[in-house]
Every structure is written in C-alpha cells, then in structure tokens.
C-alpha cells in the first residue's frame, strides 16, 4: 500500500493509481503496469472478491477465458448413439419383413398338399365332395363380400 499512491478519488469506487519503485524512487511506466495487471487479473479479482464485470481497468481489455472444448464434440456422441439405434431398428424391421414373407410363401405349398389330400379323399369317398374348408389365410365367411371383391380392378 505504501508504494501505491491514490489521486482523483470519486464517489464511485474508482481511482487512478501509479506504482512506485522503492529502490529507484520513480513511478513505473504505464505499459509495464498494464502488462503485469493483464497477466495477473485473476489474482487481483480474487483478492477483491470481484470479477471482470465488476472490476475494470480502463484501457486493459480482459482476456476472455477460452471456451470449454472437449476433444469430441458432445453432439457427435449423441448423434452416434441415435444413429446406431436407428440402423439396428431398420435392420430388425427388414429382417422380420423377410421372415414374414418366407412364412407366407411356405403356407400355400402346405395348403396345396392338404387340398390334394382332400381331392384324393373326394375320389375315395366316391364323389361326395369334401367340405371345402378355406384354409387360405384364416377363416373367411364368404357370405360377406370381401374388400377385394368390392374393388373393381384398375
């Protein structure tokens, strides 16, 4: 404090100051003081419990803290997670579609065998026709018109 002289004190907490060098008994040049303050702004802030918004040195622009830059941007991580989930879901859907179609292809061949058997039984039963159980695609009551019949082909 002894080497810091105050002058031009105003009502607001603001003041001019010069720093003296005790050994050489002259004031230090402004440029040196400015560089010193710029290097140690953080410590000065801490000493006064202030920050860059509340403690300002005129003509000394405070250097800004560099932004936190993680090595891998966060958005890429989340993107990777979502994309992998989507790709897995698409693969599963396509595979289940293929499996469904294979099952459908197998069924008509089995039904054909059953129909052949029925017709064989027909001839065996001496012309009495088998009750034609409609084995294709579940139980459809032909009394009601189905969708396909209502639709006239394009």
């Amino acid at each position: 404090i002894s080497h810091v002289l105050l002058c031009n004190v105003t009502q607001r907490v603001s003041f001019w100051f010069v720093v003296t060098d005790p050994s050489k008994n002259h004031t230090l040049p402004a440029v040196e003081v400015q560089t010193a303050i710029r290097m140690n702004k953080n410590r000065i802030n801490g000493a006064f419990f202030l920050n860059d918004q509340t403690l300002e040195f005129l003509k000394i622009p405070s250097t800004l803290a560099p932004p936190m830059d993680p090595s891998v941007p966060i958005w890429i991580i989340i993107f990777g997670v979502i994309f992998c989930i989507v790709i897995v879901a698409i693969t599963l859907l396509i595979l289940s579609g293929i499996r469904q179609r294979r099952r459908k292809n197998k069924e008509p061949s089995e039904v054909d065998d059953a129909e052949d058997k029925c017709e064989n039984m027909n001839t065996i039963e001496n012309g009495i026709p088998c009750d034609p159980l409609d084995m294709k695609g579940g139980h459809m009551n032909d009394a009601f018109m189905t969708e396909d019949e209502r639709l006239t082909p394009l």
Partner: protein
Amino acid sequence: MAHAPEQDPATSDLGEERPKWDNKAQYFLSCIGFAVGLGNIWRFPYLCQTYGGGLSSVTLSLLISLYYNAIVAWVLWYLLNSFQHPLPWSSCPPDLNRTGFVEECQGSSAVSYFWYRQTLNITADINDSGSIQWWLLLCLAASWAVVYMCVIRGIETTGKVIYFTALFPYLVLTIFVIRGLTLPGATKGLIYLFTPNMHILQNPQVWLDAATQIFFSLSLAFGGHIAFASYNSPRNDCQKDAVVIALVNSMTSLYASIAVFSVLGFKATNDYGHCLDRNILSLINEFDFPEQSISRDDYLAVLMHLNATWPKRVAQLPLKFCRLEDFLDKSASGPGLAFILFTEAVLHMPGAPAWAVLFFGMLFTLGLSTMFGSMEAVITPMLDVGVLPRWVPKEALTGLVCLACFLFATCFTLQSGNYWLEIFDNVAASLNLLILAFLEVVGVAYVYGMKRFCDDIAWMTGRRPSPYWRLTWRVVSPLLLLTIFVAYITLLSQKPLSYRAWNPKYELFPTRQEKLYPGWVLAACALLSLLPLLWVPGVALAQLLTRQRRTWRDRDARLDTDTS
C-alpha cells in the same frame, strides 16, 4: 348396398351412339374427378389420385418432403447440441487474440451467429453455393433414416410411432404453457397477443395471411389426408372426422400461441431490462455515480434531471431509446422464431439445456409426423398403381424413395441451402396447393356431381350432408380459394422477387441485405411452381390420345367387319 351407378366406358355397346363430352374442358376436368363408375366409393379419392390430379399431388408431396426434412435436420442439429451446459449459442466465441469476441458475433448476437455461421455457414449470395456442410449432411442422413424407419412398412409402422409423435408435442406444449405463464413478463406478452389492433386489422394483407395460414396449416391438397383416409373402413363418419381434425388443428394453434407469446413476453421484458441497464451503465460511467445507484424504475427521472443539468454530456452518450413495445414487435415466424427468438428465450430460463431439449424434441416429433403424411402420399399411390413389380417388397420401394429424396436434399446442406429452402417454401408449396385444392373442390362439387357425392356420404356416414356443407362445397370454398389465389398472384407480381441475405460486410449489418434473385433462379422458381400442375393437362392429354386411338381402332374394326 348402395353403390354409385357403374359406368364402365370400355364396355359400351359398339352399335350405339357413344356419349360425347360437351367440350374438351369437361374431359380435362374429369381427369381430376376421376370417379366414373369404378365401384368402391371409399377408394374414389384414391383413384382420383392415380391419374392426373394424383400425379400432381404426388409430385407436390415429393417436393415438399424434400425441403421439409431439411428443416427437420436443422431441428435435429439443435436438439443434439442442447445436451450440454452452457448451451453453445449462449456466448460468442472469442477471437484470435482472445481479447474480444468474433466480430461477426459481436455485431449481431450470439444466437444469430450460432444459427447463421456455426450451423448454416451461410454465404452472402445465392449465386455463391459454397461447399456441403458435413455436420448438416449427417443430420440430414439421420433424419431420413428415422423417417425410413417409421415409414418402412407403411401405416403398419407409422401407426405405432404416431402415438408418440402426435402426443409428445402436446405434452411439451403443456409444460411450456405452465412454465411460460410463470415467467416474469409473460402477462405482457399475452395481453399483446390478445389485444386486437384495429389499425392492423384493416390491412387486407393480414386477412390474406390468416386465410393462407389456416389453409396450409390443415395440410390440404397434399394427398396425405387422402392417403390416410383410404386406410379407413368405408363406413366411416368422415364428416365428423373432418370437423374434429379442423377443430383440433385450430385449438392447437391457439394453445401453442399461448405458450409462444408468454415466452416472447418474457424475452421482451428481459431485453427491455438489458437495454435499460446498458443506458444506466453509460450514465454511471459518465457521471461517476456509485454502482446500482440508479435502478430501472428511476432511470427516466434521473435521465430527465441529468438532461436538464448537463445536456451536452448527456447528448454525446450512446443512449438507446428503450420501449417494451418495440421488443414485443420483434416477433418472427418460421425458422426465425424457433432458431433465434426461442433459443434466446430459453437461455434465460433456469435449467436452460432441459428446456432446449424439450422444445427441439417437440419440433422434431412435429416435423416427423408431417413427414409421415407426405411420404404416405407419395408411396401409397406408387404401391397401388404398381410402379415396381409385385415381387419387389414394400420396404425396398420405401427405401428407394427415401434414398432418392435424401440425395436430392443434399443441395440444402450447401452454404446457400437456406436461400433455396426459402424458395421451395414460398414457391413450390403455396401456389400448387391452392390450385390443386381448388381443382379438387370444383371436381367433386361440379364434375362428379353434388347429388352423387351426397349419396356417397349418406352411404358412408348414414345421413345426408346438411345445406351448410353443400353451400360451402359449391360456393364458399371455391370462391375463397380463388380469392386467395388471385390475391397471392397480385402480391407476387407487385414487386420483383427478392430475398434477404446475411452479409457480414453489409453497412447495416446485422440487418439482412435485400437482394434480387438472378434470372436462372427465377426460371427454377417458375419450373418448381408449374411442375406438379403440368401432370394434370399432361395426363389428360395422354388419356385423350389413347381414347382416340381406341375409337380409331374400333372404327377400323367395324369397317373391316362391314366390308368383309
């Protein structure tokens, strides 16, 4: 079961006089209202889709899917960036010396900088295409992958996903309404929203904008409604559905505006407070008052006092005139609202990343559910017409369409992509939708016949439509659509088409620079606006030619039989 009387033109008696069209115009219009006796009534609008009118609708839906998913990709980018604290658009990046912020950011704002530079990396001119931004390309690929996943087996998959994508936005909206109403300054925003300004209401432009908004908001003439409705059972109360959909749509808009305006009111109050604070800081610095000696409420009184005692010193200060109404007026619509205003508002709410995730998640699901409609409108006609042979699975067709759309949409990831997107948004969608909707209404009401249509409705819903419906179908809707269309065209032709470019080197930066579209861009605009509609006369012409060829062939056959 009552059916429409079946008139199959192909089986007319060769000996009889064939019925003729009164004029070619009837024939062309019939291509749109293609209901000439093809049986099943509930598939009539669908068949209407497969010829002429349908191809227009499909092309239109295709064009719209292209640019719409680009917007969804932007939303996805913001959503992915919301999972961090502090949010990346909260502060400007420092410049090279680290003594200040990047100049472009300093001149505008951190939020604008993040949108225009770090997201779009936009060029200053539409001619300057720039390079593809890889991060946007990744987001676009991801959003098309999500769309594909949901549309892969048609309504089988969308039907399940839609529970989430349709309901989640309502949940988030409710949360935002509650949060918004508890924010300081929200009431001012709401009062501003609900006070009618008589002076503005006298401007016909406002009514035109309102009409176009409600028209586009309901997504009519896209073919999406038709595609979805075609999966209903035939005896479906479509009248009730139509009323319910329209009501729900309007109610949602009102509900959303409550949330939006309370948040905007909060933001405006915040900005107004900051404006006052900046002025107060200038005063304090100039007159060496102690910190916090001037509060926001005292500001005006103190300013008057200082202006009286030290007018010269006050005059040289950079004091801005702060008015709350100016900040409330700074509302925007479209991308500006979401990516600039709302993102900034979210910054000031405690727990900002959570609100950002909720907001962009809601926008993402909203965009997705619209994309489903557009894609269904494109894929279902293709499947029904049988563009690809039967053995090609549905998944492959959907995949091809999605891949083609993705490849085409990569042009929106260029640096000038945003300018092109605005063009698509303004030109491809609006005019075509208006014309298509008009043709559909006229086609049903006049060409198909009001009586037949009322019979169909009676068969489907169990009661005939009331005079209100008949009046609106015959008179009100066509008239309104025609008025909107004419007004639109007049407004377009009044001044040369221009766009607003983001140019950091502009003198009035951050105001966007008004530039005229170059010639080749205008040609592309014209093509975009006409392309979907060209199918209507095109296919009609093709049909006309095939019929002519058939009549000639029949006539030749008759001559041969006569002579032989």
